[in-house]
């Protein structure tokens, strides 16, 4: 239960923004105190449709595949800076970061490889110490990696693309 009306209003506002950005119901259930029935109602009002059913994708390996890894790394680099700027309010940082990331996708005229739900999943993987970032030994930029992997001589997917990378990516998971 939410504590008071003002707090509830803030949560409703946050959920509306998340729904507008394409968040799945599970994101809202985890991150807000609103009841499932209220969230369902909110979802229908904002999207004009019931939320999609089914499980969320759980694999951390998706973030390691070449194209998605470059997208994920961009996202996480933005997120880690915005998070500090918003004094560690995770959901505000997620919403602001997703806007900044989407803007870049628009400028590049490409589909965002990360859906909002996928981006949220990634942040949770960082928080539970499943993912981490590492600096490329060549370009010095930070990239998403599995946590606790040997760090020696790490090269990123831009400096050292796998041989098959760069053939057109069929499905990068945007239709989450």
């Amino acid at each position, binding site marked *: 239960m939410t504590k008071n009306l003002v707090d509830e209003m803030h949560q409703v506002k946050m959920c509306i923004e998340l729904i507008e950005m394409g968040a799945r119901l599970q994101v809202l259930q985890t991150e807000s105190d609103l009841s499932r029935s209220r969230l369902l109602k909110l979802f229908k009002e904002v999207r004009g449709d019931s939320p999609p059913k089914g499980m969320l994708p759980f694999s951390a390996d998706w973030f390691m595949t070449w*194209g998605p890894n*470059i*997208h994920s*790394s*961009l996202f996480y*680099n*933005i997120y*880690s*800076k*915005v998070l*500090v*700027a*918003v004094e560690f309010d995770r959901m*505000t*940082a997620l919403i*602001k970061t997703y*806007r*900044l990331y989407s803007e*870049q*996708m628009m*400028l*590049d005229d*490409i*589909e965002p*490889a990360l859906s909002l739900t996928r981006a949220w999943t990634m942040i949770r993987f960082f928080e539970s110490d499943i993912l981490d970032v590492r600096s490329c030994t060549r*370009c*010095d*930029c*930070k990239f998403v990696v599995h946590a606790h992997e040997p760090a020696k001589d790490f090269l990123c997917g*831009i*400096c*050292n*693309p796998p041989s098959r*990378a*760069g*053939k*057109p*990516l069929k499905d*990068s998971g945007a239709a989450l």
Partner: protein
Amino acid sequence: MNSRLLQEIEDLNLTYLLLARRLLEEDFPSGLFRLGISKPEGERFLALTTKQISHLSRTNQLVFTLRLRIDHLDMESPLDRRDVSSLPNLTAIRLASEENDQI
């Protein structure tokens, strides 16, 4: 230096400082990210009066520096002969990846 170039430097300084202020006014945390500046720097920016901004602009040097590192200006990449049409502009990653101890 000819006065036209001097004028362009002053104009660019002014444009930069005014844009910085607008970005921070619109969305302070995102503005800090776009500008690559720290919170105290952002707060100082916002406190500037238009008169101060105009004064800061009137110099024969630029008030802002290049954020890209020299190796980022080297446009050759191992990806040159690959299909990178699904990737974001790499400059975005490079800038976002800067050390953020200052934010």
